[in-house]
């Protein structure tokens, strides 16, 4: 008997219309846990680097995490994995909501899609019965609308539906997959789903999910729930509101947006508005939120209220989460009502709430600076807000300039040329980042930005405070009940971290300490992504209920796999390395691992090189960021080494993603393809 997992994947070949239920090897679970871990293995085994994102041979994997659907609070995430059309690397984006537990109850851990359907279809998984159904009547429908229509036609309101909107159908490089109150948004997973001709996957399950040691498991779950209650009543003092509590974060609940609006950049990640937040705006935005918000809502089996149902005037209700609350508002220099309004359209069309507003602001910046002209924007309204709505329409339909912008700022800039590249200034590995521009280099964030293969800082950071506390007594108070640390030394790192002087950034924490800190932060996210745990209860907040000390017990009691901290750390290193191996095989190298050039004003080239050297060595990677033979062997990944050798990876610097003309051609081809 398999515990926590079901032991079966659904393999669907869309070209042939073939559906198979395939038993998985429990040994793979031990080695790679599940979710992201086993997804990385499937991609390694079956998607060689020659496979283009929009090739029928690309896989699109929807995976429940190992512990999804068990009573562990907040364990509900679906990990979606494919090759990204935007970065051309392994993409893995997660969504909360209700889909992954339902898939487990239907009897599957993953849905693996390959091939391409000639016509638009949706997949209906109802326990043992799995069908590929015609979706021609859903063409062009919004993602939320699609979910409702499918539930109605199946007469199954309890079916959970993950769907794409028009952006996914039209292969917009930052198209999302929307589901429940959540979405898998980053890196264009929705575009791959659209390319495969799949409008939606609906799932309903009524089977049991078993755990190996029921009493032990329930005790762990109860401890977590008690701690959440305690933590809700005891927010962390001295940090911005969203970091004081738990959650992913609970943005819909928080009214005080001083920190985001004054520290994050407006427009195309350009303008910092110090002093923006005043009483008048605070009141206006609170009134907006209170009048448009119907209810604070949660994902499956989680008491955190990170989402909300929002009804903008004259528009249908949708479910809003997280920082998309502000991204449209800030990109357009507008107000909260505009942001919550356009997000309704953006959710139905299914676009990433980080990239989409930035791409639109980028387009308008090019117009203001004469790189694009009015002829490129025929019929665009004069007013600021109207322009954003107009651009969104063009992008999701791939009409005119929208067709260029639909590839994201990196590819669009290359296609437009004429100096447009300067304006695509906020990318890492071709992917739009949070609009943050800061002064002094932060060595911890430098490493995370460079080497994080999620390519999205909010999904890499956490655990360790973002900045030092001003006074030692505050730091002492903070470390007092900081039991989540993997080792006591982390407390000392924080205690000695000063805002100014010798022990301040960029030289403190030292490169060696930064390695420890970044490795811890990354480790927690990688565990979450294999288990299906929401980062909002684990890797993202300070002092979370799940940590390196109780996770091994959860895995032992839940999945029946003997686990301790060392074994777990080793397993994470294994599949984390496999994620990197997939990308290295696709050409990613050290030269790709850098933050946006203007992310920090004060840069330290020598220190930065030292940071990377030290971190690579710490991780068992060579100077070029490639895992070494020795480290691969230690992790039982000799097969990766063999493949690297066969392909001459160690002697190859990877394809040149610089400014060469051959690359511009491939961008053009990408668009037509």
């Amino acid at each position: 008997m398999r515990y926590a997992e079901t032991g079966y994947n659904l393999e669907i070949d869309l070209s042939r219309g073939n559906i198979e239920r395939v038993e998985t090897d429990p040994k793979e679970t031990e080695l790679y846990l599940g979710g992201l871990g086993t997804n990385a293995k499937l991609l390694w085994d079956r998607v060689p680097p020659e496979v283009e994102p929009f090739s029928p041979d690309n896989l699109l994997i929807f995976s429940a995490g190992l512990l999804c659907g068990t009573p562990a609070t907040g364990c509900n995430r679906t990990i979606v994995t494919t090759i990204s059309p935007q970065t051309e690397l392994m993409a893995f984006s997660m969504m909360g909501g209700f889909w992954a537990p339902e898939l487990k109850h239907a009897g599957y851990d993953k849905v693996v899609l390959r091939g391409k359907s000639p016509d638009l279809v949706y997949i209906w998984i109802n326990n043992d019965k799995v069908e590929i159904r015609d979706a021609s009547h859903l063409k062009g429908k919004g993602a939320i609308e699609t979910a409702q229509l499918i539930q109605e036609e199946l007469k199954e309101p309890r079916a959970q539906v993950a769907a794409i909107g028009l952006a996914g159908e039209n292969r917009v490089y930052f198209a999302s997959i929307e589901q429940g109150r959540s979405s898998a948004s980053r890196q264009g997973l929705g575009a791959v789903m659209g390319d495969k001709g799949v409008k939606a996957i609906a799932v309903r399950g009524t089977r049991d999910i078993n755990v190996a040691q029921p009493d032990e498991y329930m005790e762990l779950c109860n401890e977590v729930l008690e701690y959440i209650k305690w933590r809700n009543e005891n927010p962390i003092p001295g940090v911005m509101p969203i970091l004081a509590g738990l959650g992913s974060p609970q943005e819909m609940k928080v009214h005080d947006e001083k920190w985001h609006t004054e520290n994050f950049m407006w427009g195309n990640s350009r303008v910092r508005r110090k002093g923006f937040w005043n009483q008048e705006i605070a009141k206006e935005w609170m009134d907006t939120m209170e009048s448009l918000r119907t209810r604070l809502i949660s994902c499956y089996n989680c008491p955190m209220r990170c989402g909300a149902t929002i009804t903008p005037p004259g528009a249908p209700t949708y479910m809003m989460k997280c920082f998309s609350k502000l991204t449209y508002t800030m990109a357009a220099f507008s107000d909260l009502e505009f942001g919550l309004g356009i997000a309704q359209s953006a959710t139905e069309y299914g676009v990433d709430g980080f990239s989409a507003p930035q791409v639109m602001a980028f387009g308008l910046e090019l117009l203001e600076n004469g790189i694009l002209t009015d002829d490129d924007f025929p019929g665009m309204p004069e007013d600021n807000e109207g322009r954003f709505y107009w651009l969104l329409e063009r992008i999701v339909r791939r009409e005119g300039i929208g067709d260029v912008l639909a590839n994201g700022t990196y590819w669009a800039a290359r296609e437009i040329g004429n100096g447009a590249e300067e304006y695509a200034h906020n990318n890492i590995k071709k992917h739009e980042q949070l609009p943050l521009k800061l002064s002094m280099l932060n060595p911890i964030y430098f490493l995370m930005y460079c080497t994080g293969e999620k390519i999205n800082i909010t999904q890499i950071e956490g655990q360790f405070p973002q900045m030092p506390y001003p006074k030692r007594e505050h730091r002492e108070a903070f470390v007092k009940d900081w039991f989540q640390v993997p080792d006591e030394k982390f407390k000392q790192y924080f205690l000695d971290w000063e805002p100014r002087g010798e022990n301040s950034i960029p030289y403190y924490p030292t490169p060696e300490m930064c390695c420890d800190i970044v490795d811890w932060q990354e480790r927690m996210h990688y565990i979450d992504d294999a288990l299906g745990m929401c980062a909002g209860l684990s890797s993202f907040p300070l002092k979370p209920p799940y940590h390196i000390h109780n996770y091994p017990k959860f895995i032992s009691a839940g999945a029946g796999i003997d686990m301790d901290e060392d074994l777990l750390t080793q397993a994470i290193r294994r599949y984390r390395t496999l994620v990197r191996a997939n990308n290295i095989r696709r050409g990613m190298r050290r030269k790709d691992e850098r933050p946006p050039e203007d992310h920090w004003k004060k840069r330290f080239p020598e220190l930065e090189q030292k940071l990377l050297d030290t971190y690579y060595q710490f991780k068992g990677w060579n100077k070029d960021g490639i895992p070494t033979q020795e480290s691969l062997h230690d992790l039982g990944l000799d097969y990766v080494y063999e493949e690297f050798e066969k392909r001459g990876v160690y002697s190859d610097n990877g394809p040149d993603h610089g400014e060469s003309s051959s690359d511009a051609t491939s961008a053009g081809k990408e668009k037509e393809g």
Partner: protein
Amino acid sequence: MGEKNKKIVKTIKVNADECNGCRACEVICSAFHAEPKYSSNNPARSRIRVVRDPLRDIYVPVYAGEYAPAECMGRDKYVIDGKEYEECAFCRASCPSRDIFKEPDSGLPLKCDMCEGEDEPLCVKWCITDALTYEEREEEVEEQPEQDDLEMGLDALTNKYGMDKIIETLARMSEAKQG
């Protein structure tokens, strides 16, 4: 006249306005009632279900009540504050008209037992958003001597046929049996 007796009334107060729709109540209910306890979970077996339609802001946690062998002659539909609730949304019965409150494989009816043996029902314990809270209160009830089933049946027959007819019939049946 019956005697005055004290009785504990157990009440789960459902504040639907506070429900966040997470269904933790369904998870823990099905885990508690699994055999062996906590060995599995499955909301389809839960004795509490959240009738839930987020886009219409409908959240109704409903508990499994009595088994009804036949469905009602008609169905009910509520509209409250402009929101139309699905048919029989507030009904607790395990009934042929719908698939909730039945074991998914056998179809046997399920009924909330308030988690016997626990300090409070576990759905309440796990609902830390306080949509579900638990109250116990003492109530004085007038204890009527309980009629048993046989007596109830005979009472009904007497009303219909008259006492003489019933006695006559019983006597004849008894003779026939002995003879």
